[in-house]
């Protein structure tokens, strides 16, 4: 499992928060999704065998937000 943190752009309202939360949860292999509105970040764990951070990033960008940076750590 990998711990992933993405710095987001374009987060403007708290309803974006629920949207990103649902969008990331919808990707298989993600768990413990936490969207930090004030920090403008999303944190989650990812099973690299099932999905990749790129897939998640695509999903987020499709909803109209930008991913400014990604950090990963093995757990």
């Amino acid at each position, binding site marked *: 499992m990998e711990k992933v943190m993405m710095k987001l752009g374009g987060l*403007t309202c708290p309803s974006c928060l629920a949207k990103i939360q649902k969008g990331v949860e919808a990707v298989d292999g993600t768990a413990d999704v936490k969207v*930090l509105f004030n920090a403008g970040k999303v944190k989650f764990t990812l099973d690299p065998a099932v999905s990749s951070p790129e897939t998640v990033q695509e999903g987020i*960008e499709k909803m109209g937000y930008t991913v400014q940076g990604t950090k990963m750590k093995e757990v």
Partner: protein
Amino acid sequence: MVKIQQFLTKHRQGLVILMTILLVLAEAARWLGQMSLAYQVIMALTGVIGLLPILLTAISALRVRLVSIDVLVSIAVIGAFVIGEYNEAAIVTWLFMLGEVLEDLTLKKTRSAVKQLTDLAPQTALVVDADGNTHQEDVDFLDPGAHVLIKTGAQVPVDGTVLTGDALANEASITGEARLVKKEVGDSVYAGTILENGTLTVETTAAGDDTTFGKIIELVEEAQDSQTKTQRFIDRFAQYYTPFVLLVAVVVGLLTRDFRLAITVMVLGCPGALVIGVPASTVAGIGNGARRGILFKGSDVMDRLRQVDTIAFDKTGTLTRGKPTVQTLVVLKGDRQAIIDRAVAIEGQSDHPLARSIAALPTQQPLTATKVETVKGQGIRAEVDGQEYLLGNRALVNAVVGDDAALTRAVAQLVAAGDSLVILASADHQELAVFGIKDQLRPQAAVALHQLKQLGVKRLVMLTGDNTGTAKEIAATLPIDEVHAEMLPQDKARFVADEREGGHRVAFVGDGINDSPALAAADVAIAMGSGTDVAMDVADLVLVKSTLASLLTARRLARRTITNMNENIVIALLTVLLLFIGLFAGYVEMASGMLIHELSILIVILNSMRLIKYSPQN
């Protein structure tokens, strides 16, 4: 479509300005008279421009099966177009967009305190490679072991150990104390601190998020987005509330056959201020604390701290400075310097604060202790030069010394002076001495405790592993209600658990070193000093500045923040209530409803902003 959406989000401010100009033009056209066609066309154009970004956001929300505010507004505006109310459509979208822009700007302000802190995080380091060449590197990609060069005036980029050079460092960002600390070969340096003078080469032990400063930032970042029970409820509520408003609008439309009324209900039902009010207070309150070195792990911690009625202090390091020094040495048998040399050798093996004070005494002959064995809650047993020694409290040495009248007298005298004791006894009865060790009370301890009581804390309890006489002596000068002495770490945890069982809300204050069981057992775990990782992990509240005054400030800030949240909830609910009364009384229409709605959002954000400037008077 995504590109368009991102483009529109990016240029939202420009859009609002464009719409404002168009609205003025439209009004001008009407005022000049007889140009109602131009008026209608410009209004319709404005409405379309405003609707576009809202609609796109709504569609992407619906894709993940979320009925967001944008969905309500989109339907309402499309409805306005259908019945030919172009000016309503234009004004509603304009207000909504303007509101979002203002919301964004003001929310940024509420986050300013936390932002100031995260901006202090080092970004790059000057890495020295094997050939002695230096290059800049992002701290996130540094591995432990990397050698880093730090020059005068620069920020220390990593946690590490000094390899070469000496310098003066300002460690205020970590310890809260704005004084210069000397750094020499072998000393630890911390990321986020500043080298005021000198140059160092440092071997990295931790970089990026793993440093102490990185952990402080992570803690605050998570805290500002944490939720109280009330807010979790509101969020769940909002998820069902928005579709519910949609349903109500449809029902109203079907019953009254009044399409206009139905879409107005949709605009008025937006839960804006209710959703934004509590997080805005949270981020402002947490940020205010972070700026003062008061790190709440979440807004729920504030809620619990506000309700605490009993505070238990671990004496050493909280009520006292935690840096005890040897005041007296009473030698009953044996040679004074020989006893000091042996005691230093043995205590050098221990991390206990009392042991460290003895280990700091000047020696004449460096000795080594062997067969060192810790007797939990009592002291140490060890051998020096083939002779066995006991070093600890009376219980430990009793087996060897027995009933010794001279020892009892010496002990009684030191206890009366409020000293902590360490007794040294050799197994062959030839050496016997008592170290009297004093730990200074923190300045203003009595004042701060009195004020805590004024703030509604009913009981203040001192828990300590020290002996009863010493503990009572120290407590006598303080407004402490109860003293429990000679406690082991697990006794402290049991005390806290029992009190909670008895219906009290208990905060435990420790320095985080050997208090983790009691910290874990408390309603609110408070750690003084951020030096240890354990404290950061277990504690709910970290007081970076190790002062009792910051505990007071924390309690005041917690109370104030929660009050502010409740004010925002009341404002939000009152707004919705007023809007609906206004609607059915016929005073409120779609555009004016949107205006009031956006105003209520700005009011709750402005209310939270008062928390940023709030300064608790100690």
